[in-house]
């Protein structure tokens, strides 16, 4: 063997140097068992013999050994010298390419899933309305139909119901403000939005489930639409009774306005159901939930009539309560006196 410094590929004390290179003293700091870095001694590289075949053999052997060692030390292969890309470079480039490909595939899959689920175009057909149509449907929601033996048409539209729910939220906010409702858990806005949307979505789902049990012919969107337009009556009632505080006035509105919109919804549902028991179940549930919701909205966020509060507390009212009644004092006083005057003249 020539007296050149050769090096042994492979683990120190490990597997034999199965390459054509002669075994010699270790001059390369071969990676120890699971430790150390794969450092290549550059000076010794140049000392290899001129035979390229030996070089290739050594290269392959080195790569194989490295792959086995890389399982123990992850990432040590990344600290390569940029100069000699032949051996480490090959493995590094391969790794980089694979990682790059996986990134591309992952990105493509993610963007496809996103464009499928976040596509708002699924909802587009439900918003395809004209203002005239919306106005017509709002007025129709207060008129009960007479023909219940023939399935009535329900427009599966979501614009009107959504706007009505938001209007109800705004009216509730107004009511909560003027009644000085104290919300201990949560916020005013959160409570209002939660109540209205919870009612619309929750009761719609529940009624849809009941309709499925009772074999009624109605889809989910139609149910949402029907219940949403039924909130028009609630909006009117609450708008009036949050500002004019008479219990009797509220009960009249509750019966008349709430009753009309309930009758309409009930009639439409009845026309789409077959069988007496099923009709009774569906209509009873819907009527009860609808009317009770209006009752709840009025009494949960109801302003105590001013006269009662004044007589109870008298002159000992704490100052901050007076300040907070700034707005209702003016507007409610005016409205109440007007309503009283009208009631007296009737």
């Amino acid at each position, binding site marked *: 063997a020539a007296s050149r410094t050769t090096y042994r590929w492979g683990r120190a004390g490990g597997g034999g140097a199965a390459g054509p290179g002669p075994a010699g003293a270790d001059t390369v700091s071969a990676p120890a068992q699971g430790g150390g870095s794969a450092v290549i001694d550059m000076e010794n590289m140049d000392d290899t013999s001129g035979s390229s075949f030996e070089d290739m053999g050594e290269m392959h052997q080195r790569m194989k050994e490295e792959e086995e060692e890389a399982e123990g030390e992850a990432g040590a292969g990344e600290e390569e010298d940029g100069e000699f890309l032949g051996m480490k470079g090959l493995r590094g480039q391969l790794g980089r390419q694979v990682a790059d490909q996986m990134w591309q595939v992952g990105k493509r899959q993610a963007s496809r899933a996103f464009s499928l689920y976040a596509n708002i175009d699924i909802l587009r057909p439900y918003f395809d309305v004209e203002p005239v149509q919306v106005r017509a449907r709002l007025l129709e929601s207060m008129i009960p139909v007479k023909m219940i033996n023939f399935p009535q048409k329900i427009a599966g539209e979501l614009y009107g119901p959504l706007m009505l729910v938001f209007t109800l939220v705004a009216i509730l906010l107004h009511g909560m403000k003027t009644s*000085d409702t104290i919300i201990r858990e949560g916020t005013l806005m959160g409570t209002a939005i939660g109540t209205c949307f919870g009612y619309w979505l929750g009761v719609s789902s529940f009624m849809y489930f009941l309709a499925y049990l009772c074999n009624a012919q109605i889809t989910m969107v139609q149910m949402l639409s029907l219940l949403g337009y039924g909130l028009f009556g609630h909006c009117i009632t609450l708008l009036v009774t949050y500002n004019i505080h008479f219990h009797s006035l509220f009960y009249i509105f509750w019966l008349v306005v709430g009753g009309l919109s309930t009758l309409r919804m009930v009639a439409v549902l009845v026309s789409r159901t077959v069988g007496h028991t099923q009709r009774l179940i569906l209509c009873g549930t819907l009527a009860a939930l609808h009317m009770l919701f209006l009752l709840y909205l009025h009494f949960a966020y109801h302003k105590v009539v001013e006269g009662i509060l004044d007589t109870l507390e008298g002159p000992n009212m704490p100052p901050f309560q007076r300040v907070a009644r700034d707005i209702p004092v003016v507007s409610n006083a005016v409205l109440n006196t007007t309503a009283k005057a009208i009631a007296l003249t009737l």
Partner: protein
Amino acid sequence: FPGLADVSISQDIPVEGEITVPVGSNSPDEDYSTLDEPVKDTIMRDLKAVGKKFVHVMYPRKSSALLRDWDLWGPLVLCVALALMLQGGSADSKDDGGPQFAEVFVIIWFGAVVITLNSKLLGGTISFFQSLCVLGYCVMPLTVAMLVCRLVLLAGGGTVSFIIRLIVVGAMFAWSTLASTAFLADSQPPNRKALVVYPIFLFYFVISWMILTFTPQ
């Protein structure tokens, strides 16, 4: 390449042209060179853009500057200012009627997102962030109204101050709605403008209501 075997250039057509590759224009350099400019230039450029949009909101003409290069700096500043001024103030749990900072923030951004989605679903041609930009900038008159209300309330509560505040907030609410309608309604088909204007009306109505019913503790 069998198909190319019979391609021949006719002798009659002279081949002419320039082989030299044109030197790349300076535009890539200009884009990168903003890294080297002083920080003051960068900030002033952005501030000027934001200021120009404020002027557009104050005098709503049908210009496309607000839409073309949208930014969300103005809406953020306005939203934070409004939320700070609307804070309930007292940590007294007995009187929890005032909106907190997070509540106002969420209302403004959530409302703007809902209006944008609605206008897109109704067939609007405006993009998501452009719409957010316009709605945010049009909150400016209401922020001014909030400032005025706070000043008026410093002078004391009462019927007169309530009437002043009502007038100011009402005027600013109308201004906000008209300004944002001027920008947003153009992107809708003409017979559906009312469907887009109503949510905007409701949105600014809720904000105006919060401003009007605000009483410092």
